[in-house]
């Protein structure tokens, strides 16, 4: 299965800017479906970005993040061609991981 994570990491020599887009329903648990049944909560809880074996950014999320979440941040360092590892785990224990090359 294709990864749910799309990452773009670009280095300008000094800092690396990271944008990530993840496919996930992000159901908050407060929304009802067409039959009036509550859609149970299903959302990403933790999203981690690792560079050079260290976490450079960690997101703790609740159900208030939009469907198919987007996040953008930047960190100092990061060389072109190096790996950036991205992984998430949701409230049902599902997880996904991908590794992106810094451009």
């Amino acid at each position, binding site marked *: 299965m294709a990864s749910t994570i799309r990452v773009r990491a670009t280095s300008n020599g000094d*800092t690396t800017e990271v944008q990530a887009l993840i496919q996930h329903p*992000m159901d*908050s648990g*407060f929304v009802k479906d067409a039959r009036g049944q509550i859609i149970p909560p299903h959302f990403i*809880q*933790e999203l981690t970005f690792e560079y050079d074996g*260290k*976490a*450079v*950014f*960690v*997101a*703790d*999320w*609740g*159900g*208030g*993040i*939009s*469907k198919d*979440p*987007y*996040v*953008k*941040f*930047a*960190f*100092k*360092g990061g060389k072109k061609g190096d790996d950036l590892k991205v992984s998430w785990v949701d409230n049902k224990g599902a997880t996904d991981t991908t590794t992106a090359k810094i451009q």
Partner: protein
Amino acid sequence: MSITDNEFSATRRLVLKGAGTVALAGLGVISFDLPAAFAAANDKYPEEAFKQKSEADAVKLLYGRTAELSDKVKMDAPEIAENGAVVPVSVSTTLTDVTSIAFLVSENPNALIASYKIPAGTIPSVANRIKMAKTSNVIVIVEAAGKLYSATKEVKVTVGGCGG
């Protein structure tokens, strides 16, 4: 012969059952003790904070203190969000030694939206997209050098995107 066999296995079952109960009881004690110990550590997912209805309770659980408004925290959010399901909000700050940034929406069923850990070397600037149930204050909290700074902005949510 068969009788002794049965007796043996019955005893064995009892012993196993007993051992199982003891093991379970042991696990029970551990799982009751651990959450308190983990809550002190900062790297655990703050489950309870995400369940709070009010932003004050969520902030208290997350940081154990209150925030002061600061003009050094710059929030970028729309005046009017036509679609409350996708509201782009970003924050940046000139504060130094930032360790975390949190987003809250006061009128949402659960106020806390996201809490980002900012390790040393990461720029204290985050953009994300959040859900808003209705018109509400969006609050951003920046933890810098152990203190909390905040910025607040009201975002109007129009239902159906007709501007009404």
